[in-house]
C-alpha cells in the first residue's frame, strides 16, 4: 500500500487540500493507521505551537526602549534647532556682507582688496604643489563654510554627550 506523502499529510492538517484531494486522503486514512498517526502528530505539533508560541518579554523592555527613543527625539530636536540657527546666522552674515559692499559702491568709495600675507604664502604653496589657482575670495568662502560646518558638528556632539549624561 502506498502511504500519503508528508506534504499531503501537512496539507490535510493545515486544511489546504482541494475537496477532491481531501476526500482521497481521508479514504486512505480510514485504512492506514501509520498515516493516521503521522497526521495526529502534525496536529499535535500545531496545537502545541499555537498555545505556547508567544513568550512574555521582560516588562522593563518598554521603559528601556522609551528612554532611548526620548533621547533620540531630544537629540534630533536639538540638531534641527542648531541647523536652523546656523542657517539664520549664515543668511544674516551674507546679507550684512552684501549690505557693506552695496554701501561702499553707493558712497562712491573704491574697494581696495589687500591680500593678507598668509593667503599669499598659501598660494605659493599651492603653486608649488601644482594645485589649481584659487581666487582669494573663493578661498575665504570655502574656509568660512568649513569653519561653520565644523562648529556645528562640535556643538552637536557636545549636546549629545550632555543629553546622554542626564
Amino acid at each position, binding site marked *: 500500500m502506498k502511504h500519503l506523502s508528508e506534504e499531503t499529510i501537512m496539507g490535510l492538517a493545515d486544511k489546504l487540500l482541494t475537496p477532491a484531494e481531501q476526500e482521497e486522503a481521508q479514504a486512505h486514512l480510514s485504512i492506514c493507521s501509520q498515516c493516521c498517526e503521522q497526521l495526529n502528530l502534525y496536529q499535535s505539533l500545531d496545537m502545541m505551537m499555537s498555545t505556547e*508560541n508567544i513568550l512574555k518579554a521582560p516588562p522593563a523592555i518598554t521603559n528601556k526602549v522609551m528612554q532611548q527613543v526620548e533621547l533620540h527625539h531630544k537629540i534630533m530636536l536639538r540638531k534641527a534647532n542648531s541647523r536652523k540657527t546656523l542657517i539664520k546666522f549664515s543668511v544674516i552674515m551674507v546679507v550684512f556682507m552684501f549690505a557693506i559692499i552695496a554701501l561702499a559702491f553707493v558712497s562712491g568709495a573704491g574697494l581696495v582688496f589687500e591680500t593678507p600675507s598668509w593667503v599669499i604664502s598659501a598660494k605659493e604653496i599651492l603653486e608649488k604643489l601644482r594645485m589649481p589657482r584659487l581666487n582669494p575670495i573663493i578661498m575665504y568662502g570655502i574656509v568660512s563654510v568649513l569653519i561653520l560646518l565644523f562648529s556645528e558638528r562640535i556643538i552637536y556632539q557636545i549636546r549629545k554627550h550632555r543629553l546622554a549624561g542626564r
Partner: protein
Amino acid sequence: MNKEEQNWINECLQGNTEAFRKIVDEYRNFAFTLAVRITKNEEDAEEVTQDAFVKAYTSLAGFKGDSKFSTWFYKIVVNLAMTKVRRRKPAHQCIDDIQVTIADDNEAARKADRTYYVEKAINALPEDEATIVTLFYMEDQSLNDIAAVVNLSLSNTKVKLFRARNKMAELLKTELKENIYALL
C-alpha cells in the same frame, strides 16, 4: 495595517514619542519571541528586541506602508538577531539537563512541559527555519509576509517551513512517543 496602528505611526512621525509606547506594548512579546527563537538566548534576545524598537523608531519615516507594519518590523528583528548570531558562537541552552514530569494533572505543569518540548524542538532547528516556523504560528503572518521578512522566495519559504515542521514533528515523536497526547 489597521487604522489604529497607522494613527500611532502618524503620531510618532509628528513627534509624539508616547504613541511609540503603544507600538512597543503591542509588539514587545512577538519581537522577543522571534529574537529568542533565532538567538536561542534570552539575554541576547532582550538586547535585540530593544535595538529593533529603537531602529524602527529612527527609521519610521522610511516606512512607506507598502507592507504590513508587522512585516516591516519583524524584518528588522530578524536582521538584528541574525547579525547577533553571526557575531558570536551559538550558545545553546542546556535544556537536556532539566527534569520534566509528564502527565501531571496540574494544568500549569502540563503547560510548562509543552513549553519545554516546543523550545527544545525549535532550538534544534537552524536560525532561518526557526524564524519561519515561529512566524508561521505567530499572529496573522501569511506565507507571503514570512517570505518578505526572511528575504526568500515564496517557494523557498514553503520548502523550509515544510522541513522545519517535519524535523519538529520527528523530534517530538522521538522524545514523547505516546506521551504527546498527555500534554495537549
